[in-house]
């Protein structure tokens, strides 16, 4: 099967790239080995959140100080602002309404009530532009009885430390109580699937209206809106006070929705999305990749003019570590990683871990290196790239989207 471009990996970077290419008229196939790490995203994108443990307020400026090995530096610090606008527009086109801008970070509120720097946040999620000017003082934190994937105590504590006057209010409805019967499936995503009817939402709104007293802002765990933001709008229309969601422990409803909307948009643009398949090997002619064999298509490889590796880090198995080494499993590309096992990790769990910066080696056009030479038509994007640290620098989603858009330009221009 031949298309213009084959993308290995169907997460944020792969879908961004696929959409951008399909919009420019390319036929694109995405091979996605399962659902992506977006399911662990609380509904925010980060461009650059921290450098050496210090929060970044103006990411565009800070990006200029990054070393040359960072993917942003490879793209070119001067191009980031433009690509960031493009990314925001792409999300909006897919039906994902996010607020924020690249010139100044805002703060997203984590499930533990910590304020972390962010670039874009879903409209319905709580976000704070200026920690000295909170959007409200008195907050009703609505806690669903028997829902354990939101650490309510820690969240309330964190919000108080930010200066909110928090009242944590436990509530339930008949719908929620009946869901509690399952000992294992009281998850954000299950609630979002079940709490969709207007009557179920009304019962929740009634509880909020009855219990939230003098609060100026009502906070709810983000367990609504599996497919779009209409459940939020419906709830907001029923609740008499401003309402915002707070991210929960995964699997995340917001992240799942972002993934589903992007995928839907990509398919609408004519793209092929091979869910649950995975690339296993490639056929090369010198420094050119001819085709990719997948586990399920078997003896009918995917052929294309260009290939993009968007296979993610260790979690997504874009990188693999075994007893002996760190490697890239599909093509055995060159990786930037330490050789000795002891160097991969550090002793404290919260210390920066070396492995989180590992990734495939690329040239400045993000072409993948194999045996020291770039593969002309294979580019890498997103978490599989080396030189950044999504956990400690808060640059994961930004790198995913921006590198995807950057290589799209390279592919289209034929460079």
């Amino acid at each position, binding site marked *: 099967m031949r298309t213009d471009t084959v993308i290995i990996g169907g997460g944020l970077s792969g879908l961004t790239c696929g959409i951008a290419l399909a919009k420019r008229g390319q036929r694109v196939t995405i091979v996605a080995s399962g659902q992506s790490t977006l399911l662990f*995203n609380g509904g925010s994108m980060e461009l650059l959140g921290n450098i050496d443990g210090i929060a970044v307020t103006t990411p565009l400026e800070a990006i200029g100080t990054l070393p040359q090995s960072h993917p942003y530096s490879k793209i070119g610090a001067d191009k980031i602002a433009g690509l960031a606008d493009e990314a925001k527009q792409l999300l909006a086109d897919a039906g994902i309404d996010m607020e924020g801008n690249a010139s100044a970070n805002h703060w997203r509120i984590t499930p533990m009530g910590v304020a972390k720097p962010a670039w874009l946040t879903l409209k319905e999620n709580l976000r704070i532009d200026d920690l000295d000017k909170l959007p409200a003082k008195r907050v009703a934190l609505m806690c669903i009885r028997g829902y354990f994937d939101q650490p309510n105590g820690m969240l309330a504590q964190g919000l108080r430390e930010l200066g909110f006057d928090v009242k944590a209010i436990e509530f339930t409805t008949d719908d929620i109580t009946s869901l509690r*019967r399952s*000992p294992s499936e009281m998850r954000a995503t299950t609630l979002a699937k079940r709490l969709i009817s207007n009557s179920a939402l009304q019962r929740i709104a009634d509880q909020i209206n009855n219990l939230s007293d003098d609060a100026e802002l009502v906070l709810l765990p983000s367990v609504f809106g599996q497919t779009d933001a209409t459940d939020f709008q419906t709830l907001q229309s029923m609740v008499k006070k401003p309402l915002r969601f707070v991210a929960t422990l995964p699997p995340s409803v917001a992240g799942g929705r972002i993934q589903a909307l992007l995928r839907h948009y990509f398919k609408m643009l004519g793209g092929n999305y091979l869910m649950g398949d995975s690339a296993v090997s490639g056929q090369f002619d010198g420094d050119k990749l001819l085709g990719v064999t997948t586990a399920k298509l078997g003896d009918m490889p995917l052929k294309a003019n260009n290939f993009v590796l968007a296979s993610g880090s260790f979690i997504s198995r874009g990188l*693999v570590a075994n007893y002996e080494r760190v490697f890239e499993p599909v093509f055995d590309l060159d990786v930037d990683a330490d050789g000795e096992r002891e160097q991969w990790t550090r002793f404290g769990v919260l210390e920066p*871990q070396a492995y989180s910066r590992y990734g495939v080696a690329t040239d400045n056009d993000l072409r993948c290196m194999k045996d020291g030479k770039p593969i002309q038509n294979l580019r890498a994007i997103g978490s599989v790239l080396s030189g950044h640290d999504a956990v400690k620098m808060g640059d994961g989603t930004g790198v995913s989207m921006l590198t995807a858009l950057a290589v799209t330009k390279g592919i289209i221009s034929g460079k």
Partner: protein
Amino acid sequence: MVTNEIYKKEYDVIIIGGGATGAGTARDCALRGLSVLLVERDDYSTGATGRNHGLMHSGARYAVTDGESAAECIKENMILRRIARHCVEETDGLFITLPEDDLAYQQTFVEACGRAGIRAEVIAPDEARAIEPSVNPDLIGAVRIPDAAIDPFRLTVANLLDARINGAETLNHHEVEGLIVNQGRAEGVKLHNKLNGEHVEVRGKVVVNAAGIWGQRIAKMAGVNISMFPARGALLIFGHRVNRMVINRCRKPANADILVPDDTVCVIGTTSDRIPIETVDDMRVTREEVDVLLKEGIKLAPSLATTRVIRAYAGVRPLVASDDDPSGRSISRGIVCLDHAKRDGLEGFITITGGKMMTYRLMGEIATNAVCAKLGNSKPCITATLPLPGSEDDAPSQSDATKRYSFGERAAIGRHGSLAARIEKDNDIDNALVCECEGVTVGEIKYAVHQLHVQNLVNLRRRTRVGMGTCQGKLCSCRAASLLGEFNHDVKRAQKDLATFLDERWKGMRPVAWGDTLREAQLTAAIYEGLCGLDQAVSTQRKEDEQ
């Protein structure tokens, strides 16, 4: 009783050390009617008790080299099957001979087992392969012996529970800072309450030093010298049970020659290295230890080469030098009970050490006999026949399984035996799973917090297996921390505790952080740091604490 009341009382006996030996001694003393206080500097079974194979030796391992220990083992083995049924899984074991081993040793081994009273049945290699499919198929000989698996955490807790039922007081997170010695007589202990920082003194007529390898330090506080020879052993935990039976090598004991199926996992070990006494608190496992364990482990069960390793840990055996040979060349592996009145002229102070987790009950009996002799108590020991709490009756049958999904209930019965009846399970919230890998419900956590002396997540893990599954506490640790924060009305502490718990989990994962274990670590970091910002929350708190 509230802690302050506990401090005020004067006890017949104060026991230092909350391992199996201390717990067993406390139970025995309490059953003989003594007033008892047990103090533990960390959590119960934190030391060597919680850092071994979880193997209930038949004694066969020692049969050739130390017949006396072997006989002790098999006797205690049979007792534990009766009194600690809910902590024991009757797996049986194999001693296999590989082509590189001397098959003639099998004969020596079987004869020695016979002398020690251990049932040892030579079986054909084919039969061994049939009853234990994971065993190295190249084996040339096999002997079946009555080894079993035992859960040392549960065993210790059951002993403490029974001690408390019989009037004993127990305090964890209380470190002994010194002994109160008056005119050649030990009269109590100076304690540091590590939960609130308080320093107190508690008085007792007899002090029993059951502090394992740390016993040398305790003895020194009393001005008494004991020469301990710490022998460190490292072990690896695999993600699931590959074997049904314990697998040993039929040769002289050596590195990594026992593979034990423990609950949902299996454990290979141990290495054995003499280490300086100053380093006994450093439990980090080295790369060399991991390499040796894997290299030797796959000789027992080849599939270990491709089975996920989820954790590495190490423990220190408290070996004691014989008094007549302080050089340490002749070391006793047997039970050592020192009456310091006779040995050192210090009245009211007894050290019970050496031995094995297997013989904890016997050690308790011996120590209690020594205590009773001093106090003029002549009640007989009944610990060999009286079942531990949880093992008295048949385990409760679970509620009608056709009606609702009951994994948590069954797992709890497996863990707590008949005591599982005390776990609330009649409403949906109590029934909710917190740890999905190990089937731990909200009700079980409540029970553990309220009845099993749980102050933090690590304690909770030892009582319930929260966070002991392959993910090592990915989502459950946050859920459990929230619950602890709620029960203890201290959210900040719960959050710090969560970070400490993740750190403790990582300590074991790091030496084996490759493959899926590394993936797991990255996902945990993505959730707790990337998504939740726990690192930021904790560092802010730590800064505040410093100020």
